């Protein structure tokens, strides 16, 4: 079995998540080759074949050109699987490759199982086992689901390029909003989720954070709704945190949120839904109405 792994590179750097692709291929027991649109000054610690396209010529985001590079490498390598991370780069590019080759794509794989690949569904509450019908398939793997594997060594470089300019013009990056709270350093974080019901209830969660001597965090829907500033957002598109204690109040536990907090030392979730996916990572799940339980807890601690 053979895999073509599509590495990731952003703002002039090879992304560490690239090594998760190698962890996946290792679990699959597959041979590997890699393709990267990057630069020779940022090569992965990997001894296999690396198809390297120059980022100066192909841009960090140019899906038409990147797709062409991948299709060329597929011709040379004849892989069983073309593997991406399920990231803003991978979920954008993978379906283009799958459609061009008219082959199956299995999205956001969480594990390799008997008879196929397991993926999350229904907001991560349930799982599906999916099997490609095509001989070859495109796969995207969930960020953090497979171990980082850094084999070491120097790649056997094959420099490649793509013709044309593509239909999209990549203008540049806009930096993340400035953080007035550095949650990365907080020892205790108490986060509010959609389950708190309304903006007026945010102070109740903030009061618990204060009683515990911690900082206020929030899930994405709460930030999108304008209840809490973006600088407090925990998750893939916010801050990644690992405090000694993380208290999730009314947070169901979307994958993007879990990825940002599951490395916390101790996790308490307060949720009325016993089946909420936050329960998968919680050390303690308190099944209760968050707006009844939190004030009672705060009162007892104060």
């Amino acid at each position, binding site marked *: 079995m053979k895999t073509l792994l599509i590495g990731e590179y*952003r703002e002039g750097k090879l992304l560490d998540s690239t090594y998760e692709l190698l962890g996946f291929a290792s679990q699959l027991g597959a041979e590997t080759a890699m393709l990267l649109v990057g630069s020779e000054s940022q090569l992965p610690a990997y001894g296999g074949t690396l198809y390297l396209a120059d980022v100066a010529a192909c841009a960090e*985001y140019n899906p038409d050109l990147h797709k062409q590079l991948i299709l060329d490498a597929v011709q040379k390598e004849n892989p069983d699987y073309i593997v991406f991370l399920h*990231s*803003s780069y991978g*979920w*954008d590019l993978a*379906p*283009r490759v*799958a*459609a*061009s080759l008219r*082959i*199956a*794509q*299995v*999205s*956001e794989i969480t594990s390799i199982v008997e*008879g196929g690949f397991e993926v999350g*569904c*229904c*907001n991560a*509450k*349930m*799982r*599906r086992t*999916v*099997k*490609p*019908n095509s001989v070859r398939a495109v796969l995207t793997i969930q960020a953090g689901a497979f171990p980082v594997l850094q084999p070491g060594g120097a790649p056997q470089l094959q420099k490649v390029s793509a013709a044309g300019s593509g239909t*999209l*013009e990549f*203008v540049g*990056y*806009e930096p*993340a909003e400035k953080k007035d709270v550095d949650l990365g350093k907080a*020892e205790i974080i108490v986060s509010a989720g959609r389950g708190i019901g309304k903006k007026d209830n945010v102070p109740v969660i903030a009061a618990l954070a204060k009683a*515990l001597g911690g900082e206020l965090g929030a899930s*994405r829907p709460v930030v*999108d709704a304008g209840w809490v500033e973006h600088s407090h957002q925990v998750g*893939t*598109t916010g801050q990644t945190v690992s405090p*000694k*204690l993380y208290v999730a109040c009314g947070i*169901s536990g979307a994958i993007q949120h879990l990825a940002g907090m599951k490395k916390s*030392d*101790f996790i*308490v979730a307060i949720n009325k839904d*016993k089946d909420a996916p936050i*329960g*998968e990572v919680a*050390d*303690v*799940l*308190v*099944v*209760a109405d968050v707006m*009844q*339980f939190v004030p*009672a807890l705060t009162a*007892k601690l104060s």
Partner: protein
Amino acid sequence: MKLLVCIKQVPDLESRFKPNAEGVWYNETDLAWRMNEYDEYAVEQAVQLREKLGEGTELTVLSIGPDRVVEAVKKALAMGADNAVHIQDPAAAGKDPWQIASIIAAYAKDKGFDIIFTGMQSQDRGSAQVGVTVAEQLGFSCTTTIVGFECDGGNITAKRELEGGIKSVVKMKTPALVTCQLGLNVPRYPTLPNIMKAKKKEITAIPVADLLKDEALATTASFHPPAKKGGGIVLEGDTGVLVDQLIAILKDKTAVLR
């Protein structure tokens, strides 16, 4: 300009999901249905563009599924779409993303749409494939996960959301497809007068067999709950008791309570 927005009706995600008889998707009984959240942002963005462009612009909303999906279609019409297409398919849930995309592309290919809006993914299936695959099949420019959108004539400037809160800015020309991320805008609630107006808007029904020629490229072998990792303690009962139990656990297992 001709605009299309594609929407899916999904169950309330707070529901408890049980496998269906075949064990490959959820059992649909006792579920409450709503418009896929990502698609609400797609509809809102399409309606905002429709309003900006005014006369001469037509916004069509499309949904695939059994008769129940007409409820979601009506909401999009009440939000401001001009007309609708219901592709009738009682077995839509059993189709893979390639087939769903093929149905949409088969409908759209000779209609002259300038911009197609979709959500970045569905909340129930979550493959994040359909929008991009439609664009590939139609030969449209495409970008995904947008949190910013501007359209000036045939030129689109979109902001994509990346990991860690950074955004990338992308320009492209129509015809184009964008997949919309949460937070792109603030989806409106349909007002009562607009709900009444929407009742007069045309919903064209097309049987799926007229549009779908392709076989599935992937098969769902099973639908099941995640394996319980174990180790986590579940506390249930009276609030006062729960508070004491939790404080005792925190004192025992963490060093943060003094």
